[in-house]
């Protein structure tokens, strides 16, 4: 510690060479200033550390705001120049903070609507390009097989496990409610309809969107960041044909199979729940299923699977191709891929369910 700060009846004498070691003393001396007039005397101060000067300046400003008046005296040229720079910073015109007025909020909503429209338009155009490439280009079988393995074969354990669990939960809950009025025998039908019409296709789509949709976005996004997509484009490759259609075709082939597996896993879950909680013999459960289901119920999952596969593969790829900037953008793209895919899957599922009521044999409102 080289400098000294002496507080004496409204006059604060700063002397010596103030360095960072004096920060604590300087702060304590200045914090003790009460309201009224004070003089900060730098006559015996030879030099001052920028950090100490900044602290003196900030405390002075705070005290001035609280009614004290501090006058700086006896500063040498260097110290004066330092405080002049702080003053210049303070005197800079403040950038007005934009208030969230009603107009601002409307503009904000408008911007978001435009951004959403931009995404929707981009996604539709991208889907069109992907289909055009699918029908006009050469399909690389090995790449399709690779994605079929990644998105299909590798997803089987999780799809089966989760759908079986859903079957158990649904079977137990439906059985419990129905047992209240002696209708346990209707549980298999209720469960089978729920699983085949909605739960299995939807759960599978959500899982595939989370596993494969995000992977597609991350893969293409990383390629984009590393300029590999640009390199392909410059070489004359059709990006949709090279990067998107193998993924789309692979999901198109594996998704219906995954949904079929999910259907059976869900119904097996119902069988487990029926056996454990309702003491229902397996033969009774299976007979009830045979009576309730028609082949169309299983085909319906496959039909939904075709739609969902296109949504997930195209959305994942589109979010990847939209990546701009660095690796952080890839993370955002994967999140967007999953969120938008699931949103679109649910929307299309709702539309298909409306259609389903009119086209399933033996079903009428």
């Amino acid at each position, binding site marked *: 510690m080289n400098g000294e700060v002496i507080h004496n009846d409204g006059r604060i004498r700063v002397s010596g060479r103030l360095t960072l070691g004096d920060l604590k003393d300087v702060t304590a001396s200045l914090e003790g200033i009460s309201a009224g007039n004070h003089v900060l005397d730098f006559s015996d101060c030879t030099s001052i550390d920028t950090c100490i000067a900044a602290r003196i300046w900030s405390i002075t400003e705070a005290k001035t705001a609280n009614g004290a008046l501090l006058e700086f005296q006896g500063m040498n040229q260097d110290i004066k120049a330092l405080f002049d720079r702080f003053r210049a910073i303070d005197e800079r015109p403040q950038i007005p903070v934009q208030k969230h007025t009603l107009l601002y909020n409307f503009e904000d909503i408008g911007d978001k609507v435009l951004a959403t429209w931009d995404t929707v338009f981009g996604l539709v155009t991208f889907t069109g390009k992907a289909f055009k490439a699918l029908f006009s280009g050469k399909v690389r079988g090995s790449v399709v097989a690779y994605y079929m393995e990644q998105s299909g074969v590798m997803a089987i354990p999780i799809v089966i496990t989760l759908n079986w669990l859903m079957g158990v939960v649904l079977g137990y809950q439906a059985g419990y409610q129905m047992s209240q009025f002696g209708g346990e025998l209707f549980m298999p039908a209720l469960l089978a309809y729920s699983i085949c019409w909605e739960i299995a296709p939807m759960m599978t789509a959500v899982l595939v969107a989370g596993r494969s949709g995000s992977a597609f976005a991350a893969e293409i996004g990383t390629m984009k960041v590393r300029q590999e997509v640009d*390199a392909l484009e410059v*070489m*004359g490759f059709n990006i949709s044909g090279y990067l998107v259609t193998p993924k789309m075709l692979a999901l198109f082939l594996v998704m219906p199979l995954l949904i079929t597996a999910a259907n059976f896993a869900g119904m097996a879950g119902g069988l487990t729940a029926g056996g454990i909680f309702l003491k229902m013999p397996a033969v009774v459960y299976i007979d009830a299923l045979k009576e309730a289901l028609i082949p169309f119920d299983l085909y319906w999952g496959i039909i939904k699977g075709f739609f969902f596969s296109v949504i997930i593969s195209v959305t994942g790829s589109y979010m990847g191709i939209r990546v701009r900037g660095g690796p952080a953008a890839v993370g955002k793209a994967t999140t967007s891929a999953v969120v938008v895919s699931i949103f679109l899957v649910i929307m299309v599922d709702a539309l298909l369910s409306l259609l389903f009521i009119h086209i399933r044999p033996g079903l009428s409102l």
Partner: protein
Amino acid sequence: MSLAFIKLEKSYSAPSGKSFKVLGPIDLTVKNGEFVCLLGPTGCGKTTLLRIISGLEQADSGKINRGAGRLGYVFQQGALFPWMNIESNVMFPLKATGMAGSLCRLKAEEILDLVGLYEFRKSFPHELSGGMQQRTALARGLVTGPDLLLLDEPFASLDTRTGINLQEMLRNLCRKLSTTVIFVTHNIEEAVYLSDRIVVMGHRPGRIVRDESLSLEWPRNRLSSTFTEVLLSFRQTFEELVDLSISS
């Protein structure tokens, strides 16, 4: 391949919705077989101009007259495909032209031999040093025998010695193949060493502030007084531009 830009302009939209002009108007003509360096500070639109020439981006207005012919592009980070070995990476642009596999391999081996990577043809990019990866990228850019080769700061991330070696290799290969080259850099020495002509670009919006053909003899000696004189002259222009951009 000759090239001409007429009043080329490009703007981008900021996240705030405001549009800001990054380029133009640019008027430039590049002669067939010419080696042109686009020299300028970071952010002056050199890469954008290169991307417009290659067709990766579209200009908002103006016109590009580009003769017909093959195009090669060497990216700053190489942009090699990590799942392919060196040979496959180099063969890849040839496959896009529909060339038979055996001929592709022959051509790839030939160019890999020229850049000194024949022995490493079965290695993957991550197994090679930065300099070797850039040589591979150069080989990939040149393998199709392009009429126009675009290079975007290809040696920026390399150490000085490796950079100098690659500069010499690039210059010799391009002279041998009579390729028209547009080379983007912010390295003045690199530009003076390599080019027939240096086009200096200024900031906001990117525009041409100096366009000069160099009369330095080949082979160029970096230690010669004439080389240093040209270098200093461009350094002065460059520093004026950087000062201008900092003050603005």
